[in-house]
């Protein structure tokens, strides 16, 4: 086997290791997962019921509004998982005390972070699917025209961008162990506000609409709503911005992370403390 093939093989085994570790931990915290799932379903229900409370609309309009809200709530939950996993990549390992062992291992940073992102996407998709169908069944939402493969395809494409943006936020706890994780949550919140989670971005002030153009969630939300409510396929207007953001976000995120890692190594901030 050539050195390149051997290195690629070893990196893939390392990526599998990151996913495998998260599976072990998910198994150990299974009851917490169930509790969190129930909480997310209850929280989404409180939002989707708003459609029922709107006066003077027909049953069909109420169904469309409820579906739009449900898609928003589901993608919010999906994104929340990805951001949580990525932002906690460093904070979590620092808390467990394993961070130095991970950072001194011969695993490329891209593979390390992508492994974390890959698990987050898989885990987030499972949770989002359960959430969507549980709430739809509870409220009695009908989606006769839904094009689920198109919605899933769009979400998969958007996931690459989300991982890239997540890598950018995961560097924050490396630079500032305590405040970094907090800033990650702030970044997640801002991204979701400008992306039109429960409303069209057209209702936002103009300056916020400009910011919404660089958020991958904007296109994921718009495309998924269109696929599930109207049954459209993957629209090019949503696909190309997601592709561009995906291509740019990962290398930019990685470059930012490497700079942060160098800073942490220069100032001795890798080690767990507190």
């Amino acid at each position, binding site marked *: 086997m050539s*050195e390149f093939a*051997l*290195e690629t*093989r*070893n990196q893939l*085994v*390392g990526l*599998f*290791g*990151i996913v*495998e*570790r998260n599976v*072990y*931990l998910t198994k*150990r*915290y299974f009851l917490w997962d169930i509790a969190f799932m129930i909480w997310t379903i209850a929280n989404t229900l409180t939002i989707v019921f708003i459609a029922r409370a709107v006066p003077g609309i027909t049953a069909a309009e109420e169904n469309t509004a409820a579906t739009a809200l449900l898609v928003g709530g589901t993608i919010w939950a999906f994104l929340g998982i990805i951001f949580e996993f990525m932002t906690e990549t460093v904070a979590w390992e620092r808390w*467990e*005390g*394993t961070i*130095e*062992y*991970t*950072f*001194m*291992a*011969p*695993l*490329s940073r891209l593979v390390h972070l992508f492994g974390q992102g890959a698990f987050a996407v898989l885990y987030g998709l499972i949770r989002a699917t359960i959430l969507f169908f549980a709430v739809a069944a509870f409220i009695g939402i009908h989606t006769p025209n839904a094009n689920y493969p198109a919605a899933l395809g769009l979400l998969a494409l958007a996931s690459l961008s989300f991982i890239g943006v997540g890598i950018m936020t995961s560097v924050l706890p490396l630079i*500032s*162990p*305590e*405040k970094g994780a907090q800033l990650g949550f702030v970044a997640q919140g801002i991204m979701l506000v400008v992306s039109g989670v429960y409303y069209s971005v057209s209702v936002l002030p103009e300056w916020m609409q400009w910011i919404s153009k660089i958020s991958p969630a904007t296109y994921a939300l718009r495309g998924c709503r269109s696929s599930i409510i109207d049954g459209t396929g993957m629209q090019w207007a949503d696909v190309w911005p997601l592709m561009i953001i995906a291509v740019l976000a990962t290398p930019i995120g990685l470059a930012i992370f490497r700079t942060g890692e*160098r800073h942490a*190594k*220069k*100032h*001795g*901030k*890798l*080690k*767990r*403390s*507190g």
Partner: protein
Amino acid sequence: MSTLAPSRTDLAPRPDPQVPAVDVRDLRKTFRRRDRKAGRFARKRPWPALDDVTFTITRGECVTILGQNGSGKSTLVRLLSTLLISDGGEARVFGHDVDREASTIRRLVNRVSVEASFFKKMSASENLSYAARFYGMTPHQTRTAVPELLARVGFPPERRGESMEHLSRGMQQKVALARALLTSPVLLLLDEPTTGLDPRSKLEVQGFIRQVRAEHDATILLCTHDMAEAEALSDRVGILDRGRLLFLEPVEDVKRRFGVETLEEAFFAATGREFENEGQDEDDAYREVFA
């Protein structure tokens, strides 16, 4: 190569036997620290952790660096394991520069630190398998290698599936040794591996270090403040005091140089101070952790 380390898909370069295992020249590391007494808004001041440290370790040697807490031992280990970037001088591991060739060095080095550092909810087997993946070991390989290695460090087989949080410190430290050896390191950095262990566990770990050295063809850099451990395990002993390496010589030469009977007396003669723990973690003293 000993049977201690299982076979793996190995990308580590074969170290040149003529090249020193560790070659450190004028190595410097300074952290910036805010004087706690001066308050939160006081200016940070430079605090040298390593001050022009120079030494060489030949392949197969076991060298101990003695020093109080805060003397710079852990900083040295972290620099050699690519976890810190130096401010000056150079450090080479088997001829590879630790700053510029970090990825090569990561395949040659592993480390056992004073904290066992594991995912507490995961079992010993799961933690070891996870660590092994980073070095290219597949589930098929770890299925046999992990139980074998745990058995070699005296870990009870019936506890392999138990969460780490339920294991004693001594048990955890054995798993940490197994983790370090799982990757077949040619340079093993041991940063106070027996601190906080009960006497029996301490002897077991020391016995295992001897075994590793005898069977594994590993070079060992041991950092400790345990004088007896240093004397029992090392070819040469050095004292690191406030970031400066005072000497690095065979134990008998050290005693002869200062005309003393024990390493404690040698420390006193070399520094003018008693050898005692200052009760302060060296890096935490230097770094502004929550910057």
